[in-house]
């Protein structure tokens, strides 16, 4: 993997700054970051996980949300590079999957079965607290050099800062509240994916694309549209037309 170009990196930072002053949608923001990091690294699946109040890692956003990758991110709740990065506060870089079956009994076989060859994970740090992790799962063998790793770590920390953007925050207790609110938003999105998929007879992946497209087009938050889907079924007809 080649070192990311300064020019592309600068564009990402500009986009991040732009997003953070807008009407803020945390999950869409995290998806955008995952997309951009994936782009910078040449296309691996990139996902963001946040820890709930009990310290369990829960999926929040990814560059690719197909069901099989979702599972790979969810497994991090029990073992895998993301859990290690969360627990140690240190990145896991260039882990050799072939030698990882003992280290990650659940993650390694699933990762291998979908053609994963390179895995990396970075802690999401906020002040001195680790609040989650960013996972990078590539289908091609490739190494992250030191510069790449530093860039990804910086972007991971930006994702953590995004969490504090929704409301003006100074107290420590609010971080826990924000984390909880983010997790709730993510659950609502999954509930909405299921509802829409069932209603129009498509896969949950297609339903998600429709919800996402509708949120963008109507310039509203992803979680707001998702909430509408599951609390007001009549609203579905608008989204279906998309």
């Amino acid at each position, binding site marked *: 993997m080649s070192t990311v170009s300064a020019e592309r990196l600068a564009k990402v930072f500009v986009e991040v700054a732009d997003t953070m002053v807008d009407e803020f949608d945390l999950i869409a923001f995290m998806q955008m970051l995952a997309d951009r990091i994936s782009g910078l690294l040449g296309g691996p699946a990139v996902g963001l996980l946040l820890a*709930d*109040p*009990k310290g*369990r890692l*829960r*999926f929040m956003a990814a560059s690719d949300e197909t*069901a099989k990758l*979702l599972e790979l991110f*969810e497994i991090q*709740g029990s073992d895998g590079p993301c859990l290690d990065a969360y627990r140690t506060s240190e990145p896991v870089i260039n882990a050799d999957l072939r030698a990882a079956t003992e280290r990650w009994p659940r993650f390694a076989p699933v990762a291998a079965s979908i053609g994963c060859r390179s895995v990396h994970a970075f802690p999401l740090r906020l002040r001195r607290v680790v609040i989650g992790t960013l996972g990078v799962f590539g289908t091609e063998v490739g190494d992250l050099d030191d510069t790449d790793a530093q860039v990804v770590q910086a972007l991971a920390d930006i994702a953590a800062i995004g969490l504090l953007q929704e409301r003006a925050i100074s*107290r*420590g*207790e609010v*971080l*826990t*509240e924000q984390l*909880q*609110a983010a997790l*709730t938003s993510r*659950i*609502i999105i*999954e*509930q*909405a*994916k*299921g*509802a*829409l*998929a*069932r*209603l129009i007879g498509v896969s*949950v992946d297609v339903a998600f694309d429709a919800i996402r497209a509708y949120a963008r087009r109507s310039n509203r938050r992803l979680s707001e549209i*998702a*909430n509408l*889907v*599951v*609390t007001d*079924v009549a609203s579905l007809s608008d989204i279906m037309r998309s």
Partner: protein
Amino acid sequence: MSRPDGPDGPHWDPSHSKPRVPSSLVGRLRRICDDAAQALSAFGVGVSVMTADGAHGIAAASDPATARIEELQFTFGEGPCIEAFAASHPLLIPDLDATAVRWPVYTPAVTEAGVRAVFAFPLQVGAARLGVLDVFRDHAGSLSRVELGEAFAYAERAVSALLDGHERTTDVLDEAFDHSAELFQAQGMVLVQLGVPLAEALVRIRAHAFATSRPLSEVAGDIVARRLRLERDTSEDTA
């Protein structure tokens, strides 16, 4: 605390033909309130069940005095529990003195009862709202970060207990409280398929898993893959 067990209590559902043991649910909730009160150095903890259309009732409280305090916000139609439920967001009031204008009737009444701080946590799974867990303290001051995390964990236990309803006397599913995307997707699917509110969809899925002795994740997977359709009637409850 006999009211929730009776026909006027929030958990009485005459449509179920099988004999119910609501006292087990109330017992579980009360244990959660007791544990939470102790862990959070609280004067008392109460759980109320609420629906979006305004129905409500106290499900359990750590003691009779707390039950009376919990009741006050419904009596007056104002207070942190009602607002936390409406906003789907916790409401943390470390010092009630600052809320005399916000809740002109509620604040003096609970202050009179010795409460100085209230922390209200909505009981919810995504967009499905079930009620609120209220933590009352006799001293002003915020919950620490650790206490706040614990309060969320107690709220989650209460959610789990409410979803299991009267079906269970043990905490079988609690250990594996499932946060997989597939389970939440299945909830959305059952919402549309059965035309029931999301909260009921959750209960149906868990009831089916329990009745067929299958893991929740497996049932959810079958629903999402369209291999399983839950029946419109609650046949698994009436066998």
